[in-house]
Every structure is written in structure tokens, then in C-alpha cells.
């Protein structure tokens, strides 16, 4: 046995993860120790927020360093740090929009926050994993936490149904992923991404059927997590049933984590055999954005509409994956950050507009919002325009770079399909805007109770959406420095 000590593991490299885990457990214990009523346990949110902030600071300290720890299973590089930042920001914003929401919905359990922190840990492991097993474990930590979060509202049937559906299908798809990993291991004798690349290079870039099948199954497994068609069917049902704050969280977090793993696996391990997977991803990309956009057109529930829109966004991101150049990595990073802001912002507004028991979630319930709460309507419009990709918002710059990267690699047709799709998308985003501005109210709007937490979250989202739209250069530069190692 080699000389094993804390130092060989370089345990400091997972310090942010440890902090999140520690705070997660602390929240659990503090929750059961407190004798206050459920609705009054404000400290749960505070505590978990502090954990996220500390983790973010610790993760920021690693900027610029590159190291492999745990015998090469865990990587720290600018790429994984960018994702850590996205995940932590996502968790932080989710906690901000959750605080009053969970109190309103009577689900202010300590477990709620703990599971958010735990699933963030899973995402970080996925983005930092340098071997397939680590990525898989991260994915499971993330998924299991979210299965429970979706069903957090135990007294509502749709929430239960969503949770069960997500769990069953998730477990099903995890089987594919694990089988894929097993096949890859069987074919190459290693789970390390770099070793797989070495193996493939040794074979002169020709894959045997076992490895090909393994690769295909990995696409299925991760494709499920990022909600790519045809593995997307769970998305609308689950997004609709889940508590709204969790919907916001799971629309961004798992998707980003899935792409983090997707990029790492396919750019590092299968980077040399691009021609073997680009066509599949090409088809998936077209299928995903088209399905998402077309079904979104006829939705009447805002959460379902945003669910389909999130499918469509996964499609756009797949375009950059197909392009597989350095620009596409930074485009994906940028787009995910942009999506984080606009998506959480939009869901935050949905939370503000909706009432107890998640009622008033139809698009028609937004009618006339501009007359009653003009500032909310403006913010919502901003987020929707950004999702539709209209300048000068973050979404526009993100799409611009994604399509540019596709064209740069010669996928002109794919870029054109993407542009057509984003034109279709404008229609259903604007439908909400039209309802808000051009129709009279169809219901009585309650007086606004905007808690400081959700207000801060909305403000951060607005600033993020506008800043990335007007001053994208700085973030893009960071994203460009975060390209994957060993390409």
C-alpha cells in the first residue's frame, strides 16, 4: 500500500465541497434542535446561504491553479471552477427565492436546504470529475437529492407524482449510463478520461463496437439529465409538479452539470473520435430544440412553457457541443451563466405572481400585469427577451456565440436551424409579454409582498442579464480561459 496520508489525497482541493456538506448537516441538526414553529425558522435559509458564500470564496481561491487530487479522480482547473461558480450562484439564488416561498407553501424543512446543498455537491463533483466513476457518483448525489426536492410538497399530489416519475425515469436512465460506463471500462480497461483518450489514440482513433455502444449509452444517460429529446418527456410533468423554486434550480443546475460532464467526457475521452459522435449529437440538437420550441407554443401553464423552453435551450447548447472547438466551450460556459440569470429571474417572478399552493400559474394569469405591477412586468419582459435572444441581453450574446462557433466549425445548416428555432421561440416568449402589456387583467392581483430575499435575487438576475448582454467581454474572457485542458 502506498504511503497514504491526508496530503496525498490533497483534501484541501475539495474544501468547498466539504464546507457545503458540513453546512448541509448543520442545517439538518439545527432544524431538529430548534423548537420554533416551521414557518419561523428563518435561520435555515441564512445558514445555508452562509455555507454557499463561504464555499464560493474558497473556490475562488483556486483560480488559476490546476491540480489533480485523489489519484487523478478529481480535477481543479479553470473549467471546473467556472462551473463551481455557476452551481454555487445557482444554489445561492435558489435559496434566496426559496426563503419566503417555502414558508408560504409550508415546506420550510431543514432538509429542503440541506438537499439543495447536497445536490450542489453532486454537481461540483460532476464538473470536477476526471474519471467516469467520479462523474457518475456526482450525478447520483445530485439526482437523488433532487428527486426528494421535487416531492418536497408532500401534501400535493402533483408534487408526489412528479417526484416518483422523476425518480423512476432517472433510475432507469442511470442504468443506461452505468451500463455505458461499464462497457467503456470493459473495452478500455480504465475509467480515467485521459487514459481512455490514450487508449483510443493507441488504437489509431478506431473504436470497437463495445466502446461505441458504451459511448452511445453514456449519451443516453447524460442526455436524460440535460433534458435532450427524446429523453425529455419527463421534463414538463416534473417541472410543473415540483415546487417552483426547485423548478428554477433544476432547470439550471443539473443541466449545467450535465453539460460539464458531457463536455469533459466527449472532449477529453472521445475528443479524437469527433466524427463518431458529432452526427448523433447533431440529430439530438435539432430534435431537442425543435421539439422544445414547437410544444412550448401551445402551452398555457407558465411553468410548463418554461419547461419546454428549457428543453429548447438544451438544444442550443448541444449545437455548441457538436461544433467542438475552443470557442464552443466558452460559448457553452457563457450561455449557461446567461441562462442561469434569465431562468432563475423568470421563475422568481413566477413565484412572486403565484399564490399559495402554487395557484395562478396560467399564462392568462399574467394578463394585465403591466398595469398593476409595472416593474415586475418589465423585469419579466427582460428575462423573456433574453431567453428569446434579443439584444442587448445576455441571451442574445450567448446565442450569437453558440451560432458563431457552429459556423466556425462549418455546421452552417445546424446554425440556420438554430436561428429558425430561436425565431419560433420569440413567439411564445412574446405571448407572455403581450398578455402582460396588452390585455386587461383577468383576475384581481394581490398587493405585492416582495420580500428582500427574492428582491435581491431578481435584482441580481436583472444585473446579470443586462451586464452579460452589454459587457460580455469580461465574462467571455474568463470563459475563454476556462477551456478544457488536454484538448
Amino acid at each position, binding site marked *: *500500500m502506498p504511503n*497514504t*496520508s*491526508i496530503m496525498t489525497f490533497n483534501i484541501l482541493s475539495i474544501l468547498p465541497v466539504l464546507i457545503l456538506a458540513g453546512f448541509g*448537516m448543520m442545517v*439538518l*441538526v439545527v432544524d*431538529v*434542535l430548534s423548537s420554533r414553529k416551521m414557518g419561523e425558522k428563518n435561520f435555515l435559509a441564512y445558514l445555508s446561504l452562509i455555507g454557499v458564500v463561504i464555499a464560493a470564496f474558497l473556490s475562488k481561491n483556486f483560480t488559476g491553479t490546476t491540480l489533480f487530487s485523489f489519484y487523478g479522480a478529481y480535477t481543479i482547473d479553470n473549467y471546473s471552477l467556472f462551473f463551481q461558480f455557476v452551481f454555487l450562484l445557482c444554489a445561492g439564488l435558489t435559496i434566496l427565492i426559496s426563503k419566503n416561498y417555502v414558508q408560504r407553501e409550508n415546506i420550510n424543512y431543514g432538509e429542503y436546504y440541506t438537499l439543495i446543498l447536497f445536490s450542489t455537491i453532486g454537481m461540483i463533483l460532476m464538473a470536477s470529475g476526471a474519471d467516469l466513476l467520479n462523474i457518475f457518483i456526482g450525478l447520483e448525489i445530485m439526482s437523488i437529492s433532487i428527486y426528494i426536492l421535487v416531492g418536497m410538497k408532500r401534501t400535493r399530489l402533483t408534487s408526489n407524482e412528479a417526484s416518483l416519475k422523476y425518480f423512476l425515469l432517472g433510475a432507469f436512465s442511470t442504468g443506461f449510463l452505468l451500463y455505458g460506463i461499464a462497457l467503456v471500462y470493459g473495452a478500455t480497461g480504465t475509467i480515467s478520461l485521459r487514459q481512455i483518450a490514450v487508449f483510443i489514440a493507441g488504437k489509431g482513433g478506431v473504436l470497437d463496437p*463495445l466502446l461505441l455502444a458504451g459511448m452511445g449509452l453514456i449519451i443516453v444517460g447524460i442526455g436524460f439529465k440535460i433534458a435532450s429529446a427524446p429523453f425529455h418527456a419527463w421534463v414538463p410533468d416534473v417541472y410543473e409538479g415540483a415546487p417552483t423554486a426547485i423548478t428554477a434550480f433544476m432547470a439550471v443546475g443539473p443541466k449545467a452539470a450535465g453539460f460539464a460532464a458531457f463536455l469533459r467526457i466527449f472532449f477529453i475521452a472521445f475528443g479524437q473520435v469527433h466524427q463518431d459522435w458529432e452526427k448523433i449529437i447533431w440529430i439530438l440538437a435539432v430534435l431537442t430544440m425543435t421539439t422544445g420550441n414547437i410544444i412550448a407554443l401551445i402551452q398555457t401553464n407558465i411553468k410548463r412553457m418554461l419547461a419546454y423552453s428549457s428543453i429548447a435551450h438544451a438544444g442550443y447548447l448541444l449545437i455548441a457541443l457538436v461544433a467542438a472547438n475552443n470557442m464552443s466551450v466558452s460559448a457553452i460556459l457563457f450561455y449557461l451563466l446567461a441562462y442561469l440569470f434569465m431562468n432563475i429571474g423568470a421563475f422568481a417572478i413566477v413565484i412572486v405572481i403565484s399564490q399559495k399552493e402554487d395557484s395562478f400559474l396560467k399564462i392568462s394569469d399574467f394578463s394585465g400585469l403591466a398595469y398593476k405591477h409595472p416593474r415586475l412586468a418589465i423585469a419579466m419582459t427582460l428575462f423573456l427577451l433574453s431567453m428569446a435572444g434579443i439584444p442587448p441581453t445576455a441571451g442574445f450574446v450567448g446565442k450569437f456565440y453558440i451560432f458563431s462557433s457552429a459556423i466556425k466549425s462549418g455546421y452552417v445548416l445546424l446554425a440556420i436551424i438554430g436561428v429558425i428555432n430561436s425565431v419560433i421561440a420569440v413567439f411564445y416568449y412574446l405571448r407572455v409579454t403581450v398578455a402582460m402589456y396588452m390585455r386587461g387583467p383577468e383576475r384581481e392581483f394581490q398587493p405585492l409582498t416582495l420580500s428582500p430575499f427574492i428582491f435581491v435575487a431578481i435584482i441580481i438576475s436583472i444585473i446579470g442579464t443586462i451586464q452579460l448582454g452589454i459587457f460580455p467581454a469580461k465574462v467571455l474572457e474568463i470563459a475563454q480561459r476556462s477551456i478544457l485542458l488536454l484538448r
Partner: protein
Amino acid sequence: MIHYLPILILFFIALGFALTNVGISEILGRKRPTKEKLTPYECGVEPVGSAHERFSVKFYLIAMLFVVFDIEVVFMYPWAVAFKSLKLFGFIEMLIFIGILLICYFYIWKRGGLEWE
């Protein structure tokens, strides 16, 4: 791939064995069904109610807790075997591990997971 051939052969042998046995009894066995013979648990006791009854979720909870802690204990075996070479690091590591278990136990206890009513 050739290395996996014995496994495949074993697979077919197992499958064949099971099918043969079931098939033989189906072919050779005489069937004189009576009402008693067709009831589940043919052992003299009259069945009461349907077998498809719902169990209290508490059974699952207890079972799950048992499994979780049981598996954690399994982890201690390889640790005990390697304890000498792991030295102090292994000791501290296990302390942390048990500490986490204790926190979980405490949480379950306080949450009321161990109470039946």
C-alpha cells in the same frame, strides 16, 4: 471477447436447467385442482382478506434505516484489515466517518424516525 465465453456457457446452462425443471414438472405432473389447492398458502389456515394490502410506510422507514447503518458497518471490515498500514490517517478518517454517522443518527432520532407512533 473470447474470455467471456465460459460465462455465456454458464448462463445458458443455468437457463436450460431452470426451464427444463419447470417444463418437466409441467409435462409429467398430474393436475387435479380443488378449491383448497388453489388458495395461496395451502396449509390449512383460511386466508383473511386480500394479500394486496398496504403496509404502513413506517416499515419501509425502519428497513431503510437498518440497511443504511448495516452497510456503513460493512465498511469497517476492510478498514479493520488495512488498519495497520493506514496508521493514524485511517484512525482519524474512521472517526470522521463515525462522527457523520452519529450526526445522522441524532438527526433521525430527533426527527422522530425511530418512534413507531
